[in-house]
């Protein structure tokens, strides 16, 4: 072993502020993409369980197309491929307002929306169909049944697999470094470039990711206990 460790690089110069900025960007892009993914996932997941042919077909197309292509390819597609097709004014506006962040956020959100929808669909399908029938028989429309009965129950049932998927989203936000989003992995590379201390920089980045995942997992498991529906969570896990 010929490598001389020098951990002080992490505590000197700009390393600390770079890591902090990276962490903030990672959290921002992940949070926005998560919201987008959740909305897309709820719609696509619900549509796939509806007895309405065209909606089911459209949702299936969305899900199957987006989740079967690597996220990196989507990042390149949304960042390099799509903007040149937009009107010049829109392009100028985008590149003035951090296009890489928005393209990355969009790619991440749309890709994970397709994956979320599968989790939500499984949640909806695990609800006994009598719930749906009872709701409709009280005079609710299908839209009301989904909004007021089915989706609220489904969201409470899917907390464990949805947490897993949310952590995947957080980890996948690192792919955005390929289009120049200055998130945590990008900043880790930046420290490496400036100090030539690869292992120290990567250790710092890795530890932040691990801690972030552990904290979120711990937080959610508390939420899960609060929102669990007695008698139904077990059923879902047994599948």
């Amino acid at each position: 072993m010929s490598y001389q460790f020098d951990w002080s690089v992490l505590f000197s110069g700009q390393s600390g502020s770079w890591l902090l900025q990276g962490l903030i960007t990672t959290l921002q892009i992940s949070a926005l993409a998560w919201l987008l993914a959740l909305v897309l996932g709820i719609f696509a997941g619900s549509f796939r369980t509806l007895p309405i042919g065209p909606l089911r077909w459209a949702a299936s197309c969305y899900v199957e197309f987006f989740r079967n292509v690597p996220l990196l390819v989507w990042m390149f597609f949304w960042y390099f491929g799509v903007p040149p097709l937009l009107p010049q004014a829109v392009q100028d506006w985008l590149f003035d307002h951090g296009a890489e962040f928005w393209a990355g956020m969009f790619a991440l959100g749309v890709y994970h929306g397709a994956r979320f929808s599968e989790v939500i669909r499984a949640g909806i399908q695990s609800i006994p169909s009598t719930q749906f029938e009872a709701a409709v028989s009280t005079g609710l429309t299908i839209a009301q049944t989904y909004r007021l009965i089915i989706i609220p129950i489904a969201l409470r049932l899917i907390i464990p697999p949805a947490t897993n998927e949310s952590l995947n989203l957080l980890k996948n936000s690192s792919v955005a470094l390929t289009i120049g989003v200055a998130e945590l992995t990008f900043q880790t590379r930046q420290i490496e470039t400036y100090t030539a201390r690869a292992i120290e920089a990567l250790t710092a980045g890795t530890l932040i990711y691990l801690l972030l995942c552990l904290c979120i997992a711990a937080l959610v498991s508390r939420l899960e206990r609060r929102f669990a529906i007695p008698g139904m969570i077990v059923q879902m896990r047994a599948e």
Partner: protein
Amino acid sequence: MDFQVILNNFGFLFFQGFLGFGDFAGGTLRLAIPAIVLAFPLGIIIGLGRLARTRWISFLATIYVEFFRGVPLVMVIFWFWFIIPNLLGVSLPEYGVALTAFVVFEAAYLGEIVRAGIQSVARGQVEAAAATGLSHTNTMRHIVLPQALRNMIPALVTQFIVLLKDTSLASIIGYIDLTKAAQIVNNREIRPFELYLFIAVVYWLCSYGMSRYAGSLERRLSAG
């Protein structure tokens, strides 16, 4: 839009980028197939390790799995990209770095699949094997693992799909896979929409085709 660019560069994109035949050490399949083949034995060891009765073995296996599942793959690739030359003092080409990173990373996920597969074998099988006088090792080797492997096949196909898509990340260290090949062509032709849409379709065909296959396998296995 001009899709002629795809036809003009089809040889480079497909043979060099996707398959890995050409002047450069590259190729999506040339990385994905050896990676899963090499990661699988390691995955079996980790899966067995997690179920081991010896406390420290199961502890180490758990740490391994939890660590690699908590870290982004991009980070793992950078780790191997810097750690191999720095700590071991040897320089590996991109292919070696990418292959090592994928084997180590995938083994954590395969370990979980192996563990689930072993746990899916009915308890009665183990008891019956013990009753006939087989040792613990022999029970694992002749009774549990063969059945577990059969149950795992659909999950393994699904994991291979994930791996195939993940190999696109090897392009960040300069490995010439399908994604990098498209980038190289794009630098010359400046046709990003057409090129990235084309490789999206190639990935989609492989991935969707295999996921349909995994689905039909699953139905056949659960029926049989």
